[in-house]
């Protein structure tokens, strides 16, 4: 493969651009298995690895990553599992739904129809434990981050930004406008696999109390 540019992130992490989400996930697995990195975090178009600066200098870490990328598998993974989730959209569950729909010149119902008709898939997990980034949102729908992030959004909240949804498995701070809340628990502390969603899953949303 062509080795992408490596850039420093602060004093103990390195980042590369990887546009293809499927390739990003394969590459992340490859780097995790190498055991050389303290963190491997896929982003929306990038992949960041953390290193222990006591063990290696930034220049050494850079050389190790360049070497790992040269020998990385070229493959991509294919999305597999599909899951349907129910969405509550009352004003408490989706405090920003009416405003965001209005900014798009749509009724809340028409906005939600476009959300539910979108071919959504989990692009990556991150941000907070269990937070799922869903790609595939109808590109007609536009939304921007809040100017001031909320200190707390409820567990199960569904945030929207242009082109993507974000599902908050746990309550916590968040900067995405919230359009609803998933009925099913996205997190179960005692389950063998505590988080319901995994990178690569396809997701269908169904608005509660609606037949469509």
């Amino acid at each position: 493969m062509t080795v992408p540019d490596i850039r420093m992130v602060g004093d103990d992490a390195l980042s590369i651009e990887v546009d293809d989400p499927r390739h990003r996930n394969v590459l992340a697995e490859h780097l995790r298995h190498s055991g050389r990195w303290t963190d491997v975090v896929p982003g929306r178009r990038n992949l960041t690895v953390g290193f222990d600066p006591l063990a290696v200098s930034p220049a050494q870490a850079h050389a190790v990553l360049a070497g790992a990328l040269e020998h990385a598998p070229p493959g991509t993974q294919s999305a597999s599992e599909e899951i349907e989730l129910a969405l509550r959209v009352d004003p408490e569950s989706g405090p920003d739904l009416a405003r965001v729909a209005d900014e798009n010149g749509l009724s809340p119902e028409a906005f939600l129809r476009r959300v539910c008709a979108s071919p959504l898939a989990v692009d990556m997990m991150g941000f907070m434990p269990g937070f799922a980034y869903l790609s595939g949102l109808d590109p007609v729908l536009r939304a921007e981050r809040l100017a001031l992030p909320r200190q707390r959004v409820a567990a199960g909240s569904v945030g929207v930004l242009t082109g993507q949804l974000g599902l908050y498995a746990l309550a916590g701070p968040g900067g995405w406008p919230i359009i609803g809340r998933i009925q099913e628990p996205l997190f179960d502390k005692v389950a063998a696999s505590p988080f319901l969603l995994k990178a690569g899953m396809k997701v269908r949303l169904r608005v509660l109390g609606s037949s469509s």
Partner: protein
Amino acid sequence: MALANRLAGNASADTAIEITQGGAEFEFRQASAFAIAGASGKLSLSGKTIVAHRTHFARQGDILSIGHPDTGFRTYLAVPGGFVADEFLGSSSTCLPAGFGGLEGRALRPGDELEFDAAMEPAASLETPANLRPFMTASHVLRCVPGPDYAALDDAVWSDVFEATRRLDRTGIEIRGPWPHLADGALKPSAAVFPGAIQLTPSGNAFVLMPDAQTTGGYPHVLQVIRADRHLLGQVAPGDRIRFLRRTSEQAHNDLVAKTAIFADWLPGFRF
């Protein structure tokens, strides 16, 4: 926390209690050694004044009172063997946003009973060497390297004075000051962020991320507090003044090696 644990005869990462802005009382149900480090206001054991950074011995029924610190923000209480706590994903830390770890994943409340092995005793009564005691101040200098989105700033950031606001917890600290206004479209595709990342938001203020912060984010990542100085963030209180000191990543590496060496004799194997 590592310093309090050391005085209790523990490993650096054993489970201790973090007390934010003081104001806590503990009753010992059994005689035990204990130690306190970090920010310290007035400390007393059953009415008798005691000092931080020393191993103390409580009798059954003694009341430990931890006052509000004048400077600094977090105080650490350690007992031999550490407190019994929930573990999740390999850590007993309480992660409040997620509700993991500690005691039921929440902050302690009056009436909670905490377990530990009171039969354990530290090998000796210890005192933290004077040169290793963190200096508590309301005016912080944080060494930083430019972040991936440093272009959103100008070099005045290295001479301006900033201030911590009241929006501050273990996920982040809001920093007010003469930040440049963000250009439209400055928000980025979400990328990895780590504790110490300073992100500029459209509100005109910045946030520095703390240990319980998110792992990815889309606000421009303009500065990164170097690893050697990230522990200082825990003692930043609302209203404290903050200045940034510019480092290259190679300098930051050397700073970390140097600071680790200073603590190596007292805290063997400790990593910042």
